[in-house]
């Protein structure tokens, strides 16, 4: 049911862990739905994401989606990271079963939530985050 890329990322997830002095930390999802993603970003003065770590409670596709999302944004600027959509995550994974698409949505939201936290802490404003509601991202994302 999963592509080889999904299984490869599930088996060898990239960037698992935490960053103690992270510049942004975001968490989305909830245990009721069966998946939670937490991301940690190190962001330098040029707004480049220099390091990314994640932790995920969830199914195979949730773990693979988080893993590939962290790969996609490492080394990118905050602005570039905000452009990454769930479609991009699905595409990079070579597809996801229809019932698992929400995992890719969660990955997109995890990125936004982490940048939102960074923006709050550093008094920054990104128009891509204008409609982003970190509270809603904790709720039902299905």
């Amino acid at each position, binding site marked *: 049911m999963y592509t080889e890329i999904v*299984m490869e990322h599930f088996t060898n997830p990239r960037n*698992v862990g935490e960053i103690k002095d992270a510049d942004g930390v975001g968490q989305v999802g909830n245990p009721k739905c*069966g998946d*939670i*993603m937490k991301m940690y970003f190190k962001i330098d003065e040029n707004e480049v994401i220099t390091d990314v770590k994640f932790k*995920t*409670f969830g*199914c195979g596709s*949730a773990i693979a989606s988080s893993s590939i999302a962290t790969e996609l944004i490492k080394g990118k600027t905050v602005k570039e990271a905000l452009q990454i959509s769930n479609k991009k995550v699905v595409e990079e994974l070579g597809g996801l079963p229809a019932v698992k698409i929400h995992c890719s949505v969660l990955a997109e939201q995890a990125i936004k939530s982490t940048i939102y936290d960074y923006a709050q802490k550093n008094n920054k404003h990104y128009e891509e985050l204008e409609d982003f509601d970190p509270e809603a991202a904790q709720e039902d994302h299905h």
Partner: protein
Amino acid sequence: MMKKRVYMDYSATTPMKEEVLEEMMQFMKTEYGNPSSLHSYGRESKNAVDTARDRIAETLNAKSKEIYFTAGGSESDNWAIKGYAFANKDKGNHIITSKIEHHGVLYTVEYLVKEHGFTATYLDVDADGLIDLEDLKNAITEDTMLITIMFANNEIGTIQPIKEIGAIAKERKIAFHTDGVQAYGNLKLDVDELNIDMMSMSAHKLHGPKGIGALYIRPGIRLHNLIHGGAQERKKRAGTENVPGIVGFGKAAELAHENLEERIQEKTRLRDKMIDGILENVPYTILNGHRTKRLPNNFNISFRFIEGESLLLSLDMVGIAGSSGSACTSGSLDPSHVLLSLGLTHEVAHGSLRLTIGAYNTEEEVDYVLEQLPPIVERLRKMSPLYEEIEGGNQ
């Protein structure tokens, strides 16, 4: 080199035994007659069906004419419940069942409520998955016509007090159906001693073929037909008999009941070794289902902070086949209704793992699971933000 594979999903289905397949083959190749035919081909098939019926009846302490073949457990559940409800409307319109039934029962009762004006009481279960007999007594009204409570639960293995439920039903003159799909072949069942009026069974759970099952019906219990047509099964279930399936079921039933007591002991020993081995060595684990009133082959443990599907995928990579009550494995958004009925939180229910052992599992395989499972759990927990919170709290 063949990768090591350990099948521990016997409650999902079982491999057919060689002897079963052998007996079936002749009824596909050479003795293929229709049992309703007059000629010798027909008679051969008819005799084979009769023999299979005798074999099953014997295992239940029932008479052959009380066994009706169906296409499986779900059909048996549907027939017992709908057939009885429709034929006995004069006795009332209230059905009592439990919250942890198989969907074959649960959705059939829901259908009667929604479409045919019946009412239903869904009994709660305690944290071990047992119904309370007092609750049952209190739920009975003068309109109660049918009680349907499963013998042993397919997910958590808990065995209900069937004899006592049957006695209550008998005393109040209410029919009692039990879904015996998981119990039959795993436990010794005597329909008289257990006060059972109807019981659903399925062949593929006991090394028989898929697509064949049976319903035990006590004489005097009247059911409407579910499948209308020819005069097969004493005019109660139309359709040309699945002769190879029936033959296979009969043989499988016979084999399952040879040395049943010893088998139960051996499976129980392996089950307990596996349960104790995990509960003692892996922290934050919860056994689902009753510790002793439990199918001899059922292991169901929730591993906190991780999700069942990723656990199953990881186990599959080392060749271990199990199942989970996690939503992600069912295609729905909610975890198993059975686990939630025990009072588990969604998170704990999502982290459940069911392993069910069978005739071909060995001690070595149990040891392999005990060796492979803990590091997999640890690896997934290290990835989990929920575990991080707990571990952080401990520092």
